[in-house]
């Protein structure tokens, strides 16, 4: 799958916008992303390990409902886009 980061998070991923993984579920894809970019973890996840409210996930352009299972199966050509709603700078 392809995972795309928003500009707000690029500084936690060495300014790489797009990542490609062979993972088969959303969860394992996100795990791979954070294993490759450890600084992303606290920026993207809250203390309970859930995606912070300020970030939204889109899969192939469709917004993933908050609370949806991340065990969802994804294929090699699926695109996960992380969008930051707003930042407080």
């Amino acid at each position: 799958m392809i995972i795309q980061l928003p500009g707000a998070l690029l500084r936690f991923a060495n300014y790489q916008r797009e990542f490609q993984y062979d993972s088969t579920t959303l969860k394992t894809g996100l795990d791979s992303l954070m294993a490759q970019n450890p600084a992303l973890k606290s920026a993207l996840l809250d203390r309970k390990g859930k995606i912070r409210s300020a970030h939204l996930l889109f899969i192939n352009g469709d917004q993933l409902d908050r609370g949806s299972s991340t065990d969802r199966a994804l294929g090699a050509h699926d695109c996960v886009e992380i969008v930051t709603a707003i930042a407080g700078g």
Partner: protein
Amino acid sequence: MPFDTSMFSPVQIQPRRLLQLSMSGWARWLSEHLSVSFPSMVSKHHASAVVAGIELEYLEPLRFLDADILQVRVGLSARREGSILDLVLDYSASAKSIACVRLVVIPVHVEDVESLSALPQKLPDELLARFDADEVADEVAAEPRRMREELRALRKEKPACERRTPFTIHRHMCEVADQWSFIELPGLVEPGREAICLDPPPRFDELRAGVSQRLVRIDAELRRPFFAFDTGILVTRAYVLPSRIVYVHELRSARGRNHRHATVIEQFEVAA
């Protein structure tokens, strides 16, 4: 603020500079009235704010040689229990009001002080309690409708031309969270307008007013952020109206569904 040459165009004080000074005035107001700095507001109160609306009105002509010092008076008030802030800045020179900036500001709760990701949330009670009584409006004040009315009126008019200009959000256009800054809106829309001004369509030479005449006002609505390195499309429509020249700009995402991130209306006086 002493005048310097970088503050002015040949015809007036630059709008970007007025917005930049608005930000400085805001920071100073917070420090003097609420005894809080922007950094401590974020780090201690997990609070910040984003600008959702801009009204900049030039009241009197003012050129570089007309005065030496710019003065600004700042007022901040809260409404809807601190879920909206109104920042008003009156600029004057030589004892004359020369411009007024009104910013509609949305307080946000900062979830994480490293990434500064945030969500809209009313100002913390601890900070709201530091406002003077006359700085807090209990009633629901009327939303500024000027921009929407202006856009509605323009729908009846036929634009003289339309132009699309790609742009990239570079880091110098962003604030500390790598999110675009409202200060940069006048500069972001400028390429679309200037290209039309310098090469207007046949029989629309009046459109050159967009560089030759005084900007009278800017209204802007910011709907969603851009972040550093994002790309977008600036859609500019130019209108020649009986008493003014109007440029309407939409800043849209270049990706996905081309969401509209902001709308800006610039109005110029007509040459005498």
